[in-house]
């Protein structure tokens, strides 16, 4: 048929059936190409755009970098008294940077208020569940992010092991959490982001620990379940005191060196 079409002329006298079959065939090839393009877009282009935009967001914060190691007391004091806690900001406001040494030395992602898919997770990256605790506070600082596509901030969430540092920076303060447990739950299990997490959570429980929660999809490329990681605050320190040793030891130096 290909050969016939190649040599076809408008006046070649193709019947209506042959023309229809040809048109349907071309339509199906077109749809196939579009589907392929969609996969390229979803699995590759959203990461390209996401990584670029999320790096831009970090740059635009233009936060003062922490002082270099040589300029401050080393190691810096690890504070375990009540940390400063910021007020919950408005929707889409970027209020924190998230460092996870386990995710690589160049890993730093912005955290914004809200978990709207299109307006926060598909663009800025990590979203903070509204109404949950802010970094450092008693309760549960809960975040969501993509595990695949759109910059995939939580791509390696399943690689985290107990004790891994999870470092949150607000403009003034470092909060160093450590992984306590990971679990796989159903999408309806909102108890994992409760102030005292549980499946289901006990609504009468009084929070007394400073927790962090990450949620992402599970299995990868599926929405069937959620992968959840809990952490607990280890210590905090002002940014003006330097950089947490967990980052420096992993080869991450946000001060820009020297």
């Amino acid at each position: 048929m290909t050969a016939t079409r190649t040599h076809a002329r408008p006046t070649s006298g193709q019947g209506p059936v042959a023309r229809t079959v040809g048109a349907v065939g071309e339509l199906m090839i077109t749809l196939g190409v579009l589907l392929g393009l969609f996969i390229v877009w979803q699995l590759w282009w959203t990461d390209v755009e996401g990584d670029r935009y999320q790096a831009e967001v970090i740059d635009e914060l233009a936060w003062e970098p922490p002082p270099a190691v040589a300029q401050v007391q080393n190691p810096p004091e690890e504070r375990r008294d009540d940390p400063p806690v910021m007020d919950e900001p408005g929707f889409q406001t970027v209020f924190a940077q998230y460092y996870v040494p386990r995710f690589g030395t160049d890993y730093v992602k912005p955290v914004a208020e809200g978990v709207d898919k299109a307006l926060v997770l598909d663009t800025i990256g990590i979203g903070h569940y509204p109404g949950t605790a802010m970094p450092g506070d008693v309760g549960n600082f809960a975040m969501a992010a993509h595990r695949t596509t759109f910059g995939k901030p939580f791509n390696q969430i399943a690689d985290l092991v107990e004790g891994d540092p999870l470092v949150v920076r607000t403009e003034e303060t470092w909060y160093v959490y450590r992984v306590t447990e990971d679990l796989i739950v159903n999408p309806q299990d909102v108890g994992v982001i409760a102030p005292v997490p549980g499946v289901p959570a006990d609504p009468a429980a009084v929070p007394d620990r400073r927790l962090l929660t990450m949620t992402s999809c599970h299995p990868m490329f599926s929405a069937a379940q959620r992968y959840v990681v809990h952490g607990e605050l280890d210590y905090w320190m002002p940014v003006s005191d330097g950089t947490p040793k967990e980052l420096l030891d992993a080869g991450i130096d946000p001060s820009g060196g020297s």
Partner: protein
Amino acid sequence: MYGPLWRALPGPTWLRVLILLALAAAVVVVCFQWFFPWVSDYMPLNQQTVGEGTP
């Protein structure tokens, strides 16, 4: 479908090929920028939050 398009294009073969490449590029841009993001909102393949509303 593509036969009439080819015949409707002006100029020699190399010019038609060039125009078709430009058209294809335009289709890809429109898909990547607007069409695919819109479609993906209707595909429940990619959710990472917990909540009563999520399936």
